[in-house]
C-alpha cells in the first residue's frame, strides 16, 4: 500500500497571535507546529504500513519553514517527502491548495491519500474533499478507523451525538482523519538522525503553473478582514408574570443562545 499524507504547518495552538498590517491574516513571527489532525493522519499511515507493508510519503505546501514538518514525519518513519515550497501557499484557499496537490498526485498515483480533518488555522475542512473530487476518486471524512476489506477498505466515520458510520470503499481513496484516533509516536533520536538522509523533493510554484496559474489570486474565497472579537456585556430584564418570563427564557435559550 502506498500512502500519501498531506501535512500542514500551522501556528502553535497557544502562541499569542497578532494581526498583520493589512488585517487580513496573522503576522508571520509566531511559532509553528504540525497541524494536529495531520499528526494523527501520519500516525495512522505509519501503522497501516507496519501492518500491510508499503510506503508512506508526506507532502506539504508552504514556505521554507514548513520543511520542519516533513523532517519530523521522516524522523517518525515516513519514507520520503515532497515540499511544494513557496511563501504564497500560506494564502491559498482550499480549492487552490487541492489543485496544487492534485497536480503532484496525478503524476504519481497513490493507493490512499490522507489529510487531516481540517487545519487548525483556517479550519476549512475542505481540502481533502475537493482533492478527491479533482482526482475523481471516492473520499470519506472524519475517519477514525481503517481496515482492509476485499480489494478496498472499510472505514469508521464519526457522526454527531456519539453515532458512527461504517463505509466500504474501493481504492484509491482520500480520507480526512480525525484527531485523537491513535497514540502518536515520538520521533526517536535515531529516527531524527536518519531523517537527514531520506529523500526530500522540492517542487516550486512555477512547476505547478498549469495547475494554479494565478497563484493565490486564483482563490475563490477571500478573507476580507480579521479581527479579535469584542467582549461586550448586555443585561436584559425579562418582564411579565413568572409563566410568561419562563416562556421567554426558554425561547431565547432555544433560538438566540441555542443551548437547548
Amino acid at each position, binding site marked *: 500500500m502506498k500512502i500519501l499524507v498531506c501535512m500542514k504547518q500551522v501556528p502553535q495552538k*497557544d502562541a*499569542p497571535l497578532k494581526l498583520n498590517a493589512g488585517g487580513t491574516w496573522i503576522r508571520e*513571527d509566531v511559532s509553528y507546529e504540525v497541524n494536529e489532525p495531520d499528526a494523527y493522519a501520519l500516525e495512522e499511515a505509519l501503522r497501516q504500513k507496519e501492518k500491510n507493508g508499503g510506503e508512506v510519503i508526506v507532502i506539504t505546501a508552504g514556505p521554507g519553514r514548513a*520543511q*520542519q514538518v516533513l*523532517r*519530523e514525519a521522516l*524522523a517518525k518513519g515516513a519514507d520520503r517527502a515532497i515540499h511544494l515550497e513557496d511563501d504564497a501557499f500560506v494564502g491559498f484557499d482550499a480549492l487552490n491548495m487541492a489543485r496544487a496537490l492534485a497536480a503532484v498526485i496525478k503524476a504519481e498515483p497513490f493507493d490512499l491519500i490522507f489529510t487531516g480533518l481540517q487545519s487548525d488555522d483556517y479550519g476549512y475542512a475542505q481540502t481533502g474533499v475537493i482533492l478527491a473530487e479533482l482526482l475523481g476518486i471516492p473520499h470519506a471524512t472524519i475517519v477514525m478507523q481503517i481496515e482492509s476489506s476485499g480489494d478496498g477498505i472499510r472505514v469508521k466515520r464519526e457522526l454527531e451525538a456519539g453515532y458512527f458510520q461504517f463505509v466500504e470503499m474501493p481504492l484509491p481513496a482520500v480520507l480526512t482523519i480525525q484527531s485523537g484516533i491513535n497514540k502518536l509516536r*515520538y*520521533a*526517536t*533520536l*535515531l529516527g*531524527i*538522525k536518519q*531523517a*537527514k538522509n531520506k529523500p526530500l523533493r522540492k517542487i516550486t510554484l512555477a512547476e505547478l503553473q498549469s495547475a494554479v496559474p494565478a497563484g493565490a489570486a486564483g482563490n475563490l474565497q477571500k478573507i476580507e478582514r480579521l479581527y479579535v472579537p469584542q467582549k461586550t456585556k448586555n443585561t436584559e430584564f425579562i418582564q411579565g408574570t413568572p409563566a410568561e418570563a419562563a416562556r421567554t427564557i426558554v425561547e431565547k435559550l432555544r433560538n438566540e443562545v441555542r443551548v437547548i
Partner: protein
Amino acid sequence: MLQSCIPQEIFTPEDFTEQQQLIGKTAEEFAVNEIDPNIPKMESKDFSVSRELIRKAADLGLCAVEVPEAYGGLEMDKISASIIAERIAKYAGFATTWGAHSGIGLLPIVYFGNEAQKRKYLPKLISGEVIGAYALSEASSGSDALNCRARAQLSPDGKHYLLNGEKMWITNAGFAGLFTVFAKVGGERFTAFLVERNSPGLSIGPEEHKMGIRGSSTCPLLLNDCKVPAENVLGEIGKGHIIAFNILNIGRFKLGAMCVGGAKEALRNSVQYAKERKAFGTVIAAFGLVREKLARMAASIYTSESMVYRTVGLMDAALFAVDRAGSQTSIEVRKAIEEYAIECSIVKVWASEMLDYVVDESVQIYGGYGFVEEYPAERVYRDARINRIFEGTNEINRLIIAGFLLKRAANGELPLSTAIKKFMDEVLGPLPLQENTSSFAGEIQYIANTKRIGLFVAGVASQKYMQAIQEEQEVMAAIADIVMEIYAMESATLRAQKMSSKLSGAAAANSLDMARLCLAHGMEKIENSARKILSAASEDDALRTNLAILRRLTKVEPFNLIAISRQIAARVLERGQYAPN
C-alpha cells in the same frame, strides 16, 4: 577576556538546526507526557517508575547521545546533549537520575574504557537495561576526593582486586547495576574500577533523607572485600585522578543546561500564578514589584542560556575538528573538551546560582502558597539547592576558574601578562575611545570596560601576591566572579546583537532589554569584586589611585532599568513563559 568577540563567532539557541529542534521536541514531549504525570510517585521514592522511565528514555535514544556509533550510540553533538538535558530538567528528581546514568554513569567507559569494557557494558547502559552510577565521594572526602580511604588489593593469583571502604552520596545507587568506584591500590595509587552490583562483598546502604531531589536515589556503598575482576580496572592504575576530574569537567556544562531548564519551568509557573492571583482588587501580575521580579528572572535565564549554548557551540566546533576515525579519538575528544574546562565551570556556577535566585523569587511570587507543598514553588526551591554542591562545589569551581586562568597565563598559553602590561601602560593616559559606532556601542563599551577591569585587578593582585596568589582564596574567587560576569555579559550581548540582525521590532528589543539588565547587574557585581581585590592588594596612595582608575572604568551610560524591566515583564506575561524574542 583578552580580545573582543563578534556576534557571528558565537553559537546561540537561535542557531539550532532542524535536527536539534526535533531532538528538543522529542525530549520536551517525553518530559511532558512521561515524566510529569509520574512526579508524585518518584517523589515518594517509587524507583520502579524511575527505572521504567530510564528504559523508555533509552528507547528514544535519550541515553545514547554521547556514545560512539561503534557501540550502538548516536554520537551526537554537545549542543544536542544540552538541549535534551534542559528539557528533561523540568523535573529535577528524574533529571538527576537520568543525568547520573547517561553522564557520570556511562561516560567514564566512553572516554577511558578499553575495547572489551566498551563492548561489554555500553550497549546495556544505553538500552537502559543496566543503570550506571559514579562512586567517588566518601564520608570524609568530597571536594578532597583524591584523599579517599577506599583501598584495593590485588589477589595473590593476580586475577582480581579486593576493594574495602565506604562510598557516600552515590546517585542511582538504589538500583544501579554498574558503578565506577575509585579506590587506592595498595593504599596509594588512586584507581577507578568498574564494579557490578552483584559483585560479592558489595552492599548498598539505606536511602539518604534529602532536602531536595527526593525523586532521585542517593545511598552509601559498602565495600567489604568486594571482589572485582582485574580486567575491570578502568584506565591505568594510579591514574584514577585523570578520570575523576575529567568526568566532572565534562559533565558540568550539562548541569548548567539543566539549571536553565529548571528555571524556565519555575518562571512559567510563576507567571501563570501571577496572572491568576488577585490582591488589592487586581492580579498581582499588574504590580511593578512583581513585574520587576519576572523581568529579572527572565533576563537571568536568557543570560545563562546564552552562556550554555555559546560554550557547547565552542566545544562542538573543537570536537568537529577531531579525527573521528583515529585510534586516539577518545583521548583527543577529551582534550578538546578539557580546553573548555574554564567555560564549563563558569556555566556550572553561574547557572546554579541563577537557578537558586529564580526559585527563590518564585516562592516569593507565590506568597504563602510558595511555602506549602501543594504548590510547585516549594519543591522546586528545595530541588535547586543541590546544584551548588555537587559536580564540584561552587567554591571549588571558582578556584578552578581563577586557577586554570592563572596557570595558563603562567605557562604562556594565554598572553595575560602582555595584556595586563599593555593595559597598565595606557591606563594613566586617556582611555582609548571605542571606535564602534554601531547601535550597540553603549553595550560594547560595558564589555570592553569590564575586560579592562579584569586585566587591571588581575595585574594588581598578581603583582602583590606573585605565585602565592593561589593561597589567597578570597582574591581568587573575586577574580573568578569578575571573569564569570564578563562571560555572562558578553554572551548575553553578542546574542542580542546576533538576534537583532535577524529579527525586528519587539522580538529584537526583548533580547536587547534582557542583555542590558544583565550588563547593569554584571557591572555592579564586577565593581564590588574589583574593589574588594584592590583594597586587599594595595594600600594608601596606591589604593586611592587604583580606586580612581576603577571609577573611570565603571563609568558607563546607565540604562533605565525600571522601563526595561517593565518591557521584559510585559513580554513574559504575554507569552506566559520565558521567551528570548
